[in-house]
């Protein structure tokens, strides 16, 4: 039963991910990306972490994608659908793709990263437990991430500011 659901979500996630890169209209791509995020959230639910699923929907689908759409709608869609992103056509895309797949496979087969499993913390999916682990065991990474976010925030404000003469 669970396997069937997983397959449904996984196939839909991959299909919508392909849609993101293959659709011509940027707005359609954005919608596909939203669908993809949603399927990933569903997979999180199957993995017994409803908190991650809710956060995924909340942040990615609810906030990030809306901002994406907001920007895309300001574009000239007709021009964007005609113009090509990569010059030189399909050839270079295929070359880069093959190189990327080869590298990923090489890393997976050579490293023992997957076998080690990064610090298996027993989480029962409860929010309290996630909070505790974040603020004890992973306190430093957590703080570093917040500083990076702050830097991004300040950067956005500086770039968005009109120049004062």
């Amino acid at each position, binding site marked *: 039963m669970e396997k069937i659901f997983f397959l449904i979500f996984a196939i839909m996630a991959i299909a919508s991910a392909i849609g993101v890169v293959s659709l011509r209209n940027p*707005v359609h791509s954005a919608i596909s990306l939203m669908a993809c995020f949603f399927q990933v959230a569903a997979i999180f639910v199957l993995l017994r972490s*409803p908190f991650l699923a809710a956060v995924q929907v909340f942040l990615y689908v*609810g906030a990030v994608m*809306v*901002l994406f*759409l907001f920007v895309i709608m300001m574009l000239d869609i007709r021009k964007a659908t005609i113009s090509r992103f990569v010059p030189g056509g399909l050839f270079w895309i295929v070359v880069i793709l093959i190189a990327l797949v080869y590298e990923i496979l090489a890393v997976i087969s050579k490293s023992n990263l997957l076998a080690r499993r990064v610090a298996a913390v027993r989480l029962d999916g409860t929010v309290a437990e996630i909070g505790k682990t974040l603020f004890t065991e992973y306190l430093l990474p957590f703080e570093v991430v917040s500083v990076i976010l702050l830097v991004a925030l300040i950067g956005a404000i500086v770039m968005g500011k009109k120049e004062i003469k």
Partner: protein
Amino acid sequence: MSHELITMDINTLIEVALIIVKVIFVSLTLFALPIPLTWMERKVAGHIQLRLGPFRVGPHGILQPVADMIKLMFKEDIVPDKADRRLFWLAPLLAMVPAFAVYAAIPFGDTVKIPFVDKEITLYISDMNVGILYILAISGMSVYGLILGGWASNSKYAAMGGIRSSAQMISYEIALSFACVAVVMIANSLSLLDIVNAQKELHWNIIYQPLGFIIFLIAALAEINRIPFDLPEDEGTLAAGYHVEYSAMKFSFFMLAEYVAMVTVSVLAVILFFGGWNAPLFLPEIPIFWFVAKVAFFIYFFMWIRFTLPRYRYDQLMTIGWKILLPLSLLNILVTGLFLL
């Protein structure tokens, strides 16, 4: 062994059947709710403005929503030339589905015992341990319907409405969530069931969180696009905003989503701040009754506001959201934390 398996199977089957029955019951109720609500809204509007409101169809105009429904069903379904047909079709669904999906996590009461069968039934579809997060996340998704509806219509008024709504909903979602955070801090849980149970015996959150409630209420008004924050459909400057090109059933989907969203914020206000299904004062506990009564009060309250206040300007809207509500909600969290320590 095999006997045990079979009985277990029957029990799980009953559980599954119960959930399906609950889901069907809740969604049918939600589908039907706009019928009395539209009538009530027009009546409230009428009486506030010293008119009678609808009066012709049926006694006191009570059949007016039915007449409206028939009209909406048989109207021509117009798709504008050069509209993005697929998204134009998808947008009303994207507006409506999240509005309904929210109710998977909303509890209407604790448990009731069915007489004769001697079986306890829970008055919620599921008690998630991330309930409030789920509700905020899913209800935040309904903005897609507005944005895409506005964009796909290929009309400048609709596009303006869509863009306004996305900016507005993102701005006020933050204050709304922060107002909920303070409640979560008091209850020590994200589950709505726990939040209500923490408010037993008149320890309602409104007593401890008056500021949080005001922030919640204002942000909720903005989230459901009602006056004084109904700029996405500002008829004075945008004709009708994001749904200006919609007609017939697609239009009614948007309206349905809007009414269900109003019910949702009323339900949330009751659950988060007014003790859920706990009886007020020392009145006897009656399952569901107090819950419905409180929700009905808030629905009336939102209608009352609509016909009392004028609309804000767009820059005022942004100022209220970012410069007043957001700092206040942060302050509220800080003060709540100080009291809890």
